[in-house]
């Protein structure tokens, strides 16, 4: 089983979004691995996907569970214009996020994504996301209200 690095972006300066485009449709699943610091101090990383341009319609939903060190909680949302991929409660914490896109190129099913978030200063979380489209995913966009810090790394792997 191959686990290929498709693309890697390491930010040389702060920027508000990162996009992976022209993703080949030849793999079974995708894994997007992120490590970085985010701002502003209390914000979310958002995500959108698409075929060509990203979908900005109300086609995103998710179920989430997380622990903040004192309590475990679960929530969900529907019919949103983006995924909530992670959140940061400071602009200094180093966060790790792994997104697994199942059957991303399959044109017979909507797209599900598993997310794991790791922030030892704030929370750990597991999410499942849905994009209600049978289009193959060949574009992934992650964005912040303000920015990802310089040094943030984004790696897109393909599993064959």
């Amino acid at each position, binding site marked *: 089983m191959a686990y290929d*690095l498709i693309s890697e972006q390491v930010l040389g300066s702060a920027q508000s979004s990162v996009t992976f485009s022209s993703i080949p449709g030849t793999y079974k699943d995708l894994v997007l691995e992120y490590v970085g610091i985010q701002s502003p101090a209390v914000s979310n990383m958002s995500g959108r996907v698409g075929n060509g341009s990203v979908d900005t319609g109300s086609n995103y939903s998710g179920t989430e569970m*997380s622990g903040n060190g004192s309590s475990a909680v679960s929530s969900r949302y529907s019919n949103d214009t983006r995924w909530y991929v992670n959140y940061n409660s400071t602009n200094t914490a180093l966060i790790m996020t792994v997104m697994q896109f199942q059957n991303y190129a399959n044109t017979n099913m909507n797209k599900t994504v598993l997310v794991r978030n790791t922030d030892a*200063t704030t929370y*750990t979380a597991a999410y499942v996301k849905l994009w209600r489209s049978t289009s193959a995913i060949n574009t992934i966009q992650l964005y912040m209200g303000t920015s990802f810090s310089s040094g943030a790394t984004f790696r897109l792997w393909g599993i064959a």
Partner: protein
Amino acid sequence: MSWTLIESVTLGSTQASVTLGSGGTIPQTYKTLKVVISARSDSGTSFTGIRANLNGSTTSQSSRTLSGNGSAASSATYSTFFAGLVQQTAYTANTFTSSELTLPNYTSSTQNKVGSSESVTENNATEAQQWMFANLWSSTAAVTSVTIAIDGSGNFISGSTFTLYGLK
């Protein structure tokens, strides 16, 4: 490219700890490391944690957890970098805990080290454990070894396995 096996240890007798990359020998040529553990302890009556001491360091560690035991979910904080859990003598015999620790950017000399781990015990009784760990080692040193040790008393029993993979 695939996950590359760097090192694998299978215990032939009880042992208190295992060091992957002993002597600081983990290659610095990968982007991400993964440690996979199948383990059981020779003491205690329930379960305990498995520490991952990067470069042998036992300081500057922290973690935040999310867990379920079959009847409730909870969350906690620790001053420990966890690879996972290990089940002890009272859990179902011949059953080992499975754990996986992922370490991205382990070669970085500018970032602290984050690690995501997940661990499950299984026990044919009213209690078993499923845990997620958000770990942080507040050090910008590149990771050259990982020492796996039981958090507390006890030893890993014969048959426990510890495997290190690299991805690039």
